């Protein structure tokens, strides 16, 4: 089944969904329209922290074409005030999360720039925009706090009365005393303070939502982008108090998500309010500028890390003090992904006998933070792998060698970490050796000399990582398969692609199980007329969860088919065999195809399964060259050896790896959301200020697979949608620091822009001069 190209209607394609998408026939959120629809525009706060004294919408209301203007009072009256949270576990000393209210439209107070203050609903989008410009809001400014450490300090401006100290949740993992003891007997301790910077996920499709209300049924239809319809419905219901069965979520193509599109945003809830009150559908399409302000941000973790080593370079203990900037409100996913994922992988790929981490989530006058590709896993991998590289430099050991000495050995799997995770399997030494060979680790010294001759600084960096893929919000995944009279097979799943290519991967899984051509299988994701139980696509879980359920459903379909076919063939079910789309009576020539069977009787099967985390792992090695004159870094080599378990579609897996690595590279070299410390204004509010990765940033990724199959899934797969991102932050940063280390530079925080690298080189040189 290991395909690179499929053939559909005589055309070679990597994926079944491509024919639709390359011809402009995709259907994204803003492509939906309904008869009689109105258009919404949100007036947003231009203050980071202020009391709303008054809102004067008089002239806006009179503007021709304006239907109605909604404000926070309307949201509060309707009870659209409290977003869902999945933070249900207890924190330090039994602490319960303090989840602040967040009315769908800001009420009485704004806490970050961009917060919606009023919603204008009008006959056209332009009229709504014109009218929004006529609304006058009087604010009384309040003190602003942007930096999470400052927000924790005594006397800091307080965001919510219900969250004293701006600390909604504190958590600890590991054993503080044992870790302190390990540090006490350490021969060497390496310390780094690391910023895993705040970034903007920026899927290319801006947010859009179209809500219709059916007064007879009392139900809502919400056309919006999702990562899975169920999670969206659940959140909308929780936020608005509308029963889940009264909300129908409709989505087809989703233009990227990266965790950001798993959330039910306040705007959608405000639109539900308007659609019900006005009795007409209400459409809203965000601009990119609104997206920078209000689409959830990612990462924003500030971590002090310490690694204790013995005389032989064996790791004794790891201690982290982790501050997670959550922005002005808690998102449903943010605090969980920034705590649970890092604590699950707290030991990284190493045997570290003593672990302790303390997490503080903090509220600041900034846009809320949520899961972003990797959701805490790239963050913890970055922290550990930076510490390991720094330790190697400090004790004078080759960073590859230091890893070898401390890897969890293959025979130790399944490995229970000191924080209680059970890593299923991995061959870490094998990964490392394969990557070292592919990267020509031994030849680096010579390449470095060549670069020096050309006046350039060369560096190489490793990162070896493992991560837990998501077990899911819902306890199981359900998939249905239907066969049509012509033999075409339709698969239904909740898991919703945002570019991952489920239509192809799931079709291949079902086609393999049924022994029919992949092109005969069509996937319908999140079909509103075919509700199913199951999880969204997120946390690298879809092939493991829904993919495995596809396999089970296909097997079940065959078994049910045998029973049906037995009647038709006049034999006992045990006498029916199935192969390649046809049921045959053993010992006779009689046979019936899937299609013919379906033509005679409705023929479908539904299967469900519960699938826990898998543990993909990998070793990435990056090599960079820096032009010391300009500080420009060029990635000259990137090697990725990954254990994704069994691979179903190599092209798709490669593509996911490319995308993940480059998203990491984007963060390392350019991306950074910056707020003005004094005013709380967003300084990086457009693509002209926020440096997105562009073509040429990473020219090539040389990849090899090193699978150890997983038993979590009957397919043997491991989740891999986030692996590239998890490994690349540290591999690239380690490479840059390696290049700069001869100058006495041991750490620089991302983004490693030309100006920052050049500035560091200048500062280092002047230190040398002074010495």
């Amino acid at each position, binding site marked *: 089944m290991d395909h*690179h*190209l499929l053939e559909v209607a005589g*055309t*070679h*394609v*990597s*994926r079944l*969904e*491509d*024919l*639709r*998408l*390359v*011809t*402009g*026939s*995709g259907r*994204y959120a803003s*492509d939906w329209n309904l008869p009689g629809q109105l258009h919404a525009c949100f007036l947003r706060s231009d203050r980071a922290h202020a009391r709303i004294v008054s809102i004067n919408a008089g002239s806006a209301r009179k503007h021709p074409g304006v239907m109605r203007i909604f404000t926070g009072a309307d949201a509060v009256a309707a009870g659209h005030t409290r977003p869902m949270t999945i933070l249900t576990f207890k924190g330090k000393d039994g602490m319960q999360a303090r989840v602040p209210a967040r009315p769908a439209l800001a009420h009485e107070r704004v806490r970050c720039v961009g917060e919606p203050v009023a919603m204008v609903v009008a006959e056209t989008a*332009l009229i709504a925009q014109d009218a929004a410009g006529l609304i006058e809001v009087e604010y009384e400014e309040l003190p602003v706090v942007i930096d999470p450490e400052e927000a924790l300090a005594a006397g800091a401006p307080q965001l919510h009365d219900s969250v004293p100290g701006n600390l909604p949740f504190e958590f600890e993992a590991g054993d503080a005393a044992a870790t302190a003891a390990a540090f006490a007997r350490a021969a060497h301790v390496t310390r780094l303070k690391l910023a895993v910077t705040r970034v903007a996920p*920026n*899927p*290319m*499709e*801006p947010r859009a939502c179209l809500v219709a209300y059916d007064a007879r049924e009392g139900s809502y239809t919400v056309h919006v982008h999702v990562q899975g319809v169920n999670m969206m419905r659940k959140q909308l219901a929780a936020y608005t108090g509308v029963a889940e069965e009264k909300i129908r979520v409709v989505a087809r*193509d989703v*233009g*990227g*998500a*990266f965790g950001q599109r798993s959330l039910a945003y306040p705007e959608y809830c405000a639109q539900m309010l308007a659609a019900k009150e006005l009795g007409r559908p209400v459409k809203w*399409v965000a*601009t*990119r*500028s609104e997206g920078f302000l209000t689409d959830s941000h990612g990462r924003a973790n500030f971590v002090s890390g310490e690694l204790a080593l013995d005389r032989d370079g064996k790791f004794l203990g790891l201690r982290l003090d982790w501050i997670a900037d959550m922005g002005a409100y808690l998102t449903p996913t943010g605090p969980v992904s920034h705590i649970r994922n890092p604590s699950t992988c707290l030991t990284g790929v190493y045997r570290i006998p003593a672990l302790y981490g303390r997490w503080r989530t903090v509220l600041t006058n900034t846009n809320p933070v949520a899961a972003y590709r990797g959701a805490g896993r790239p963050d913890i991998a970055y922290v550990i792998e930076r510490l390991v590289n720094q330790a190697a430099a400090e004790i004078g050991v080759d960073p590859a060698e230091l890893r070898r000495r401390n890897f969890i050995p293959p025979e130790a799997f399944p490995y229970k970490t000191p924080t209680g995770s059970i890593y299923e399997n991995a061959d870490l030494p094998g990964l490392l050796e394969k990557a070292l060979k592919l990267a020509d680790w031994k030849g680096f010294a010579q390449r470095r000399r060549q670069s020096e001759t050309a006046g350039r600084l060369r560096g190489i960096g490793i990162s070896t990582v493992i991560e837990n893929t998501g077990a899911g919000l819902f306890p199981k995944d359900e998939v249905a398969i239907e066969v049509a009279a012509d033999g075409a097979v339709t698969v239904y799943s909740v898991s919703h692609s*945002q*570019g*991952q*290519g489920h239509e192809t991967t799931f079709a291949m899984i079902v086609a393999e199980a049924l022994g029919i051509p992949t092109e005969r299988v069509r996937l319908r994701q999140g079909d509103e007329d075919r509700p199913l139980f199951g999880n969204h696509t997120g946390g690298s879980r879809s092939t493991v969860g829904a993919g495995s359920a596809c396999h089970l459903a296909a097997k079940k379909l065959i078994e049910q088919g045998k029973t049906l076919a037995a009647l038709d063939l006049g034999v006992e079910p045990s006498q029916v065999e199935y192969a390649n789309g046809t049921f045959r009576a053993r010992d006779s020539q009689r046979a019936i195809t899937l299609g013919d069977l379906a033509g005679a009787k409705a023929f479908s099967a539904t299967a469900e399964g519960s699938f826990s985390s898998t543990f993909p792992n990998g070793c990435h090695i990056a090599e960079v060259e820096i032009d010391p004159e300009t500080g420009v870094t060029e990635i000259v080599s990137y090697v990725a050896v990954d254990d994704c378990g069994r691979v179903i579609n190599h092209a798709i897996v*490669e*593509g*996911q790896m*490319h*995308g*993940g*690595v*480059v*998203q990491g*590279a984007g963060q390392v070299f350019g991306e950074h959301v910056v707020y003005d410390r004094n005013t709380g204004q967003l300084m990086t509010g*457009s*693509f*002209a200020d926020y440096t*997105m990765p*562009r*073509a*040429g*940033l*990473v*020219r*090539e*990724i040389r990849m090899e697979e090193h699978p150890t199959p997983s038993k979590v899934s009957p397919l043997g797969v491991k989740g891999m949608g986030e692996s590239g991102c998890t490994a690349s932050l540290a591999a690239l940063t380690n490479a840059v620091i390696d290049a700069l280390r001869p100058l006495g530079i041991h750490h620089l925080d991302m983004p490693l822009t030309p100006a920052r690298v050049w500035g560091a080189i200048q500062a280092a040189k002047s230190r040398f001069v002074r010495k």
Partner: protein
Amino acid sequence: MTTIEVTVNGVNYSREVEDRMLLVNLLRDELGLTGTHIGCDTSQCGCCTVHVDGRAVKSCSMLAAQANGAEIVTIEGMARNGALHPIQQAFTECHGLQCGFCTPGMIMAVAGLLKDNPDPSDEEIVHGLEGNLCRCTGYINIVKAVKRGAELLCGNGDKSSRR
């Protein structure tokens, strides 16, 4: 209001539009051609790229009125008689798209690039893609797709040495 006449994908249209209507809104909202996407509001992302009189332009940065009398080609006009355009073909072969949102603009930009330079080097491809952002692919397979598209366009379709 201004009355404009345009040819889009070979079909003539006459519309009375608000002076401030952008070309992209004419295409999407008036003509229902939603294959052209809007990915930003500051002219950087290139999702809205179409051809106006044979040149690749960002339809979010042009007024519909400015296109009066022009011949416009959008992504919907690229495939002919049920067959993909060679550049569309190349993107599907090379896995040059994931979510597909940037893809129509990307394909239109590449069509412009290859028209000016039928056999671009890697460097020229990277320079030629400066006006288009993609968040999913890391661009590696897009660069491959441009090369493959160049091969297919010059009739070298059998040289399918993708790997």
